[in-house]
C-alpha cells in the first residue's frame, strides 16, 4: 500500500537546542499511528513542523507521494492535514453551529443555514456523537468540545487527523467513546496520528507506534511487536521504573480537617460544594478527578488564595478558614500551583530572587528594610546544588529555564521551609520522566519525615503509585475514597464520572 505521509530525516534546531534531530516515519491510509515519547522528546515540535507552523532545517515530507513544504497551518489544512490541539480553539460564547461554521472555507456572506446544519448533523449522526448544534460551547463538557474540533476537521475533508494528547482531559468513559469514533474514522480510510504517553491507551488503539526520544525516532513497531514493557523501555531507556515504598503506617493524627467547604467561582457557580476531607500526618492523599471538577478551587482555598463561602478549614487546632496566603504559609502549608509559569514564578527575576519569593521577609534574608543580597545568593547556590537545578548563568531570568527546572525552583522554594502540609497540583504535568521521578521522590521523602501531601493529579497511574489513599472529586463534591491497593483503575474511573460509591 502506498504511504499517505512520509517523513524523512527531519531536523529542526532552535538557538542552542536541537529539538528534532533525525525523525523519519510513515503513515499509511486508514492507519492509527501513535507517536510515543516523553515530554520534551519532540512530539509537539514534530507536529508543528508537519502542520507548517515551523520550517524544518532539513529533511523531506511527502504527502501521497508528492513532496510538500507547508508554510502555514492553513496551507497544510488545505492539503487535508488537520490537528486537534490540546487547547481547543473554540469561541466559548458561541453555539456549536457557529463554531463549526467559523472553521469552514468559502461560506458565502448569505449562507443557507439549513444546508450547513444538515451537513453537520449528518456527521454527528454517523458517529453517534452526543452533541446539540444549538448549545453554547461554554456549557459543554470538555469531551463534547473535543467532538466539535473533530467535526471541524472532518467537514474540511481531512485525510490525516492529528490528535495531540486527546485523552488528557477525558474520563475513561469519554476516552472509550473517542476510541470508538477513531475506529469508525479508520474504517472510512482516514489516517490518524495519535499522540499520547498513556501506555494503556497506546496499547489499545495503535496499529503502529513510533517512539521518539530526544528528538530522534528510534523505532517503529507494528501491533504484536510491542507490549507495554517494550514501549516503556524504549521510551525511557532504562529497564525498570522505580517503585516507591508506600508509607503503610499512617498516623491517625489529623493535620488538616476540611469541613463542609463551599467555594463559588466568578460566575457564582459552586466550585466546591459541601466538600469535606481529612488529611492525616505523613499521608499522601491523592485526589482523582477529571480536570475542572473543583481541584483548583480546593488548592486555592487551602492556600488562602480563594475566598471561602461556607465551611471551615482546621490545621491542627487552628481555624484558618479566613487567613490570607501569608498566614497559611506561615502555618506550614506549601503549595505547588497548577500553572507554574503563570502563578509560580516571577519570570523576569532570577533564580535567587524567585527562591525567596515566600521567605523574603525572613530576618535571614534582610537587614531591616534592606535585603541581605549575600544571604540570598548563598541560599540560591545551596538550593541549586541540592535540587540539581540547571539555572544558567547567574542573574539570568527564570523564564529562560526549562519547565522541569522551573518546577524544581518552585519545589525548592516550597519545601525548604520544612512544611507540614504540601498541596501539589499536577506537579509532574509537562515534565520529562526523569524530572517527574525526582518530584515523586521529594514527595515520598517528605512523607517519611512526617509531611502530609494532598496530591492532585490527572494521571491515575501516578496517583495509584504514590498515594496512601485516593479521594475522588466530581463537580466540587467528594464522591468517595478509594484504597489504591484494592481499587482498579476502572472503578476509580467510574467514580470520576460521578458514580457514587460506598466508602471502603
Amino acid at each position, binding site marked *: 500500500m502506498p504511504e499517505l505521509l512520509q517523513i524523512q530525516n527531519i531536523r529542526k534546531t532552535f*538557538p542552542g537546542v536541537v529539538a528534532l534531530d533525525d525523525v523519519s516515519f510513515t503513515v499509511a491510509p486508514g492507519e492509527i499511528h501513535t507517536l510515543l515519547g516523553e515530554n520534551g522528546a519532540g512530539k509537539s515540535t514534530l507536529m508543528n513542523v508537519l502542520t507548517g507552523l515551523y*520550517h524544518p532545517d532539513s529533511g523531506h515530507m511527502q504527502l501521497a507521494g508528492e513532496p510538500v513544504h507547508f508554510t502555514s497551518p492553513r496551507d497544510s489544512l*488545505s492539503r487535508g492535514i488537520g490537528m486537534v490541539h490540546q487547547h481547543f480553539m473554540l469561541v466559548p460564547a458561541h453555539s456549536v453551529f457557529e463554531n463549526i461554521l467559523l472553521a469552514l472555507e468559502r461560506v458565502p456572506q448569505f449562507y443557507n443555514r439549513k444546508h450547513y446544519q444538515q451537513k453537520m448533523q449528518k456527521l454527528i449522526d454517523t458517529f453517534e456523537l452526543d452533541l446539540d448544534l444549538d448549545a453554547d460551547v461554554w456549557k459543554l463538557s470538555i469531551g463534547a468540545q473535543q467532538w466539535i474540533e473533530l467535526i471541524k476537521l472532518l467537514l474540511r475533508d481531512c485525510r490525516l487527523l492529528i490528535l495531540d494528547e486527546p485523552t488528557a482531559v477525558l474520563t475513561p468513559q469519554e476516552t472509550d467513546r473517542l476510541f470508538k469514533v477513531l475506529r469508525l474514522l479508520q474504517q472510512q480510510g482516514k489516517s490518524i496520528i495519535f499522540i499520547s504517553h498513556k501506555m494503556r491507551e497506546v496499547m489499545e488503539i495503535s496499529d503502529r507506534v513510533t517512539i521518539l526520544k530526544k528528538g530522534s525516532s528510534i523505532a517503529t513497531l507494528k501491533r504484536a511487536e510491542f507490549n507495554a514493557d517494550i514501549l516503556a523501555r524504549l521510551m525511557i531507556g532504562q529497564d525498570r521504573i522505580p517503585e516507591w515504598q508506600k508509607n503503610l503506617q499512617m498516623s491517625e493524627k489529623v493535620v488538616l480537617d476540611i469541613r463542609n467547604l463551599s467555594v463559588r467561582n466568578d460566575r457564582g457557580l459552586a466550585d466546591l460544594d459541601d466538600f469535606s476531607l481529612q488529611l492525616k500526618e505523613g499521608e499522601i492523599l491523592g485526589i482523582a478527578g477529571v480536570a475542572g471538577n473543583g481541584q483548583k478551587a480546593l488548592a486555592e482555598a487551602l492556600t488562602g*488564595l480563594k475566598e471561602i463561602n461556607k465551611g471551615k478549614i482546621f490545621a491542627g487546632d487552628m481555624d484558618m478558614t479566613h487567613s490570607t496566603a*501569608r498566614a497559611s504559609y506561615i502555618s506550614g502549608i506549601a*503549595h505547588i500551583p497548577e500553572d507554574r509559569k503563570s502563578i509560580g514564578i*516571577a519570570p*523576569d527575576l532570577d533564580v535567587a530572587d524567585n527562591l525567596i519569593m*515566600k521567605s523574603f521577609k525572613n530576618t535571614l534574608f534582610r537587614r531591616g528594610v534592606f535585603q541581605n543580597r549575600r544571604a540570598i545568593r548563598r541560599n540560591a547556590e545551596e538550593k541549586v546544588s541540592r535540587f540539581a537545578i540547571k539555572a544558567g548563568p547567574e542573574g539570568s531570568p527564570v523564564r529562560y529555564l526549562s519547565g522541569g527546572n522551573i518546577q524544581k525552583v518552585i519545589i525548592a522554594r516550597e519545601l525548604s521551609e520544612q512544611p507540614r502540609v504540601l498541596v501539589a497540583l499536577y506537579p509532574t504535568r509537562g515534565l520529562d520522566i526523569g524530572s517527574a521521578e525526582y518530584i515523586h521522590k521529594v514527595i515520598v521523602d517528605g512523607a517519611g519525615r512526617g509531611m502530609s501531601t494532598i496530591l492532585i493529579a490527572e494521571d491515575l497511574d501516578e496517583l495509584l503509585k504514590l498515594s496512601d489513599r485516593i479521594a475522588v472529586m466530581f463537580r466540587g463534591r467528594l464522591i468517595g475514597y478509594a484504597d489504591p491497593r484494592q481499587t482498579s483503575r476502572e472503578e476509580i474511573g467510574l467514580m470520576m464520572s460521578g458514580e457514587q460509591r460506598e466508602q471502603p
Partner: protein
Amino acid sequence: MKLVIERRDTSSALLRFSAPMVSIVVALLFAGGLILAAGINPLDAYREILYEAVGSTYGLSETLVKATPLIFAGLGVSLAFRMQIWNIGAEGQIYMGAMGATWVALFSGLENHWLLMITMFCAAFICGGLWAGVAGVLRARWRVNEVIVTLMMNYIAILFVNYLIYGPWRDPQGFNFPLTAQFSEAARFANFFDTRLHSGFFLALFCALLLYLLMERTVWGYQIKVIGSNPQAARYAGMRTGVAIFAVLFLSGAIAGVAGLSEVAGLQYRLQHGISSGYGYTAIIIAWLARRSALGVIIVSLLMGILLVGGDSLQMLWQLPIAFVYAFQGLILFFLLGSDFFIQYRVKLIKGAQGG
C-alpha cells in the same frame, strides 16, 4: 522566496546594545531630512546643537537646567513602569507639586530658609503623590485603568493651576499678568557658578540614587519587582498587591511633584502659566528609553536637555520652529520602539518555499 518572522528565544548583549544605537542614527538621518527640507545643512545644524548645548559653561548649565525636571519626572514614571503601571500623568503631577510648593512659599508665613525648603518639599511631594494616588486607589480598588485616569487628571491639574493664577493667587502688583507674586529669597534654591543651575539638579541626582537603592536593595523594591513581573505570583506569595499599587503610584507622582517644586523654587520663583512645557510627557519617552533604570533616566534626560537647548539655538539662528525638537524626539522614540521588534524577533528569508 519568502519572508518569515520568528521569535528569538534569547537576544545577545551586542544586539540589545547596538539596536538602540542604530535606531538613534536612523532617527538622526530622518531628522536630517527634515532640516534639509527647511533649507539648512543638517551637519551644520547638528554641530550647532552640540556646540550650543555642551560647548560652553553657559550652554552646559542650561542643558543641566533643562534636564532637571526631566530627571525627576522620568524617575517617577519609570518607577511606575517597574510595576507595569503606566503613569501618563506626570505633567499634572508637576503642576500640583508646583502648586503645593507655591502655597507654602507665599502663604505659610514661614521665613527661615531651611524650614521653608523642607516644608515646600513636603508640600510638593504630597500634592504630586496624592494627585497620582487617586489613580492608584481607583486602580487597586476597582481596577480602573490608570492610563486614562492619570491622563485625564493632567487637564484638571493644569486648569486648576490656571484658575489659581488667573484668580485668587494672582499677583496684585502683576499688571494683570497670570502669575503669582515672586517668592522671597528664603524660598528659592541656591544657584551655582553664576548660572541658572540650581540645587534642584543635585537633588534630582540624589533622588535617582535613592530610587536605585530602593528598587535594588530593599525588601520593598523586591516586592515591586515581583509584582511587576507577575502580579498573580506575587499574590500567591502573600504580597499585598493593592497596597503596593497605591504606594508606587503615590511615590511616582510625588517625585514628579518635586519636579514642580524644582521649577518654581529653582527657576521661575513664582507659579505661572505653562510652568511645565510638556516635561511630563517627555518623561514617558525618557522612562521608556531608559529601560526602567535610574541611571538610564539621568543619561536620557541629559540627552533630551541637549536637544532642547540646541533646538532653541536652531530656532534663534535659523528660525527653525521648536516643533522640530519634538519631531526629533518623536522620531527617536519611533525607531527605538521599532528596534524592540528586531531584538525580540528575527526576520529570515527562506529560499525555495513552495507548496500550498
